[in-house]
């Protein structure tokens, strides 16, 4: 039982001026083991805050979030994280980046080397082990980041707009890779994204969040992720149901954005 359970999580930030920002309000959800959840929303809706709380970088103002029954109160190895820009250590080679976690745990270097090779195979970076990471392209850097996270065998993988900075073609390839890894490893994944298409394509479930205060606005159950494992992603995008859902969510987010703009104009 290693479900992620969030109960009435509230997050209130206080600025130095004394203003309070209600970043998250009464967030409750349960994520079963092996599920892939995508989170969508306009900027400022608290997506990243939620992820940071799940990762243990932030503590919620109230409410609890547990993984496998244990309350999260700090970063841990059982929750891996992938960042937008990769956040690779550019002074290290691909190998050194990937085995970073294992090195920190001082594991046997021979075993580690074998594991690194396997994971580089899986993410499609065979032969790049000794390349310095600053010489890699954006897509390859994200592959390294994935491998670096997965080699620690975490129960939960948190992805903060991992594909946001990639060009369209690379992005599509990486989406297939994420699906493939999800299928093969059976990990629980939370993926935050700006792209409605990506949320629909990858998520078994998708949450659309609304801002001020940050809350879950609507939940979708989606069939496309399982489809995507068999079919071509581009065909799914032309699927009628997919298009309807996409337009629905897009207009929802548009309305939210307009509401924010209106509020700001009034304020």
């Amino acid at each position, binding site marked *: 039982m290693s479900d992620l359970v969030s109960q009435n999580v509230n997050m209130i930030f206080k600025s130095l001026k004394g203003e309070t920002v209600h970043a998250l309000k009464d967030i409750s959800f349960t994520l079963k083991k092996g599920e892939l959840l995508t989170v969508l929303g306009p900027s400022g809706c608290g997506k990243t805050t939620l992820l940071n709380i799940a990762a243990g*970088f932030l503590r919620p103002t109230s409410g609890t979030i547990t993984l496998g029954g244990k309350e999260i109160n700090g970063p841990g190895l059982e929750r891996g*994280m992938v960042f937008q820009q990769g*956040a690779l250590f*550019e*002074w290290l080679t691909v190998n050194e980046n990937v085995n*970073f976690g294992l090195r*920190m745990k001082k594991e046997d270097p021979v075993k580690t080397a074998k594991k690194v090779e396997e994971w580089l195979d899986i993410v499609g970076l065979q032969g790049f082990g000794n390349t*310095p990471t600053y010489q890699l392209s954006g897509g390859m850097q994200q592959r390294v980041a994935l491998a670096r996270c997965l080699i620690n065998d975490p129960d939960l993988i948190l992805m903060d707009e991992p594909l946001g900075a990639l060009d369209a073609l690379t992005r599509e390839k990486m989406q297939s890779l994420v699906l493939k890894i999800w299928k093969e490893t059976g990990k629980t994944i939370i993926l935050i994204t700006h792209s409605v298409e990506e949320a629909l394509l990858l998520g078994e479930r998708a949450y659309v969040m609304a801002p001020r205060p940050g809350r879950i606005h609507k939940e979708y159950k989606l069939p496309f992720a399982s489809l995507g494992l068999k079919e071509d992603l581009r065909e799914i995008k032309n699927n009628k149901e997919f298009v309807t859902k996409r337009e629905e969510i897009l207009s929802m987010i548009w309305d939210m954005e307009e509401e924010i703009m209106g509020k700001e104009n009034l304020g």
Partner: protein
Amino acid sequence: MITGIFTFLIIFAVIGSILYGQKLIKTEKSDAVFGNPERAKGGIHWVIVGTSFLLFTWLYYSWDIAKSFYPKSANELCQVAKVNESLLSLKYLFPIEERSHKSTALIKRENINISDKIIEIQNSPDLKNQVKEKFVNLLNKTRQTIPLLTNEKYLEIETKNTINELTNRIKQLTEDFPKDNYPPPLSEEEENKRIEATKKQLGWGATGMEVPPLPESKVGLKFHTAAQELNSISDEFFAMRNHHPEYLRLLNEIRDEIKEYRNSLNDDQEIETTYIKEIKKLGQRIEYESVFPPNTLDEMEKAIRVFDKVQKKEQGATRIKDMLLFPGGTIVASGPTCAEDGPGRWLPKPSDTFRIFGDLLKPSVGFKMIPMIWYEMMGVNRIVGFLLPNWIADIMPGKYPVHTSDGTVEPNFKSKVLDVVTGEFEAFKIPVPTGHIWDSFLRVFLGLTLGIILGVPLGLFMGLNRFAKGFFDPLVELYRPVPPLAWAPLVITVFGIDNVGKVFLLFMVSFSIMIISARAGASGTQLSKIHAAHSLGASRWQILRNVIFPNSLPEILTGVRVAVGMCWGTLVAAEFLAGTTGIGFVENVARKYMQYEVIWITIFVMGMLGLLFDVTIRKIIDKTIPWRGKG
């Protein structure tokens, strides 16, 4: 000789490079776009031209070309300078290079002086009217002596004859000077003596800036002899006094009056004493000045003008050499000696400079008995004794040995340890570097290393911790803005003029720079990298060691580069202040003795070492942080 070859090489290099540049322009695909940075690529041949121009300017302005092609020119110019110098005192009498006659100027000035003094006395609140009247009267009498000097009526026959005689001597010299047989040949014995003396004198520049003063050529001898004659004429002229008995009578009258008055003064009448002394001085000045009636010296003036023209014409080729090869200056004479005056004085000749540089580099010569950079054999025991602290022996078990009753001392374990840590044992020797340059280098290295070792951890700590930042900020920010040299007097007084003081000063310099750069590096670490490291299970120490430190390396190494430059500059100035070794010390001593060559050599060495440091660090930076700017 070498300079001559160099001059031609430079000319060939410049012409060759320019031709090569022309050829390149013709053969290259021309890129017509102005502003394309590609156009600035390459161009080693222009580097050659630039260097050649620098060298050529140096050779030319330091008069090394003159020295190389016409080694006797300085000696000849020295003789010409002697004539000019002798002529100058005579010329000053007339409006040749001045605006008025010397006599006119003197009379004008003395009249003003007397009038000023009269006004001063009349306005003085400290003098009684009676005394004022007396003083004014005396001054008026002094003024009355002037007409006795300037009236032709009072010009004595004897004086007139002397003036005529001197004028004739000048005319005679003018007549003889251009002749081939001038100067008249000396007796064989005297001539040999003269030649002997010229052979003994050193060459031009051999002792730094001296010019051989004795004439070495025929033209030189001509000018030398003429200068002697002119000296004798001017000596005689200035010894002559235009004092008519009438003038002397009035002068004595004034003197007696002054003497009488002074005798009547009491010791406490200081103001009166001062005034009377000044009045006496005014009279004396007029007495010793060569004041003559108008037009008396007209003949002499004409003769001097004619001679000046003739001697200038006689200079001939020497004059052209002076203009072309001695830019911005010339050789000047002062009595029997000559010296360079102009850039030749402070811009050493390359030939001399390289020779002195070669001497300095010889370990046996060096500077002040210390080689510039060399090695010495040092016992390993001394190094061990220096590195190990002596308290190691103190904390060993047991007691130091006490002498026995038969007057010997038995060494025990503790005393043997003491021998080791103080370096008192036999050991083989290894070569270690030594010398001025090495000393300077070592100081910079030690100061910098200490600064890095202590500054980097503290800087990282300050970049990550609120307490550390707040606590150490005042300390660093209060001492850092003070120019390091302002600390030097204090630091050197407290820590001594030797290495400790300088190393500490350099430590202060590098410490603050390292703190600032390490701090900037630490606080510039992207949060996502730290988050990533956390979620990969790294501990705090591991994050510091494996994420924050490498991430700060670019800033830290840039800081090192800045610190090296600052340390080097500070060190040289600190060595100026005090010390007995080091490249700055060398320059300071050379300055005291006006050894321009050594000054320039030290400047060059410092520049090269500074460049070496910077290039080394740049190489290290490129090697250690290739990811810089690409993260």
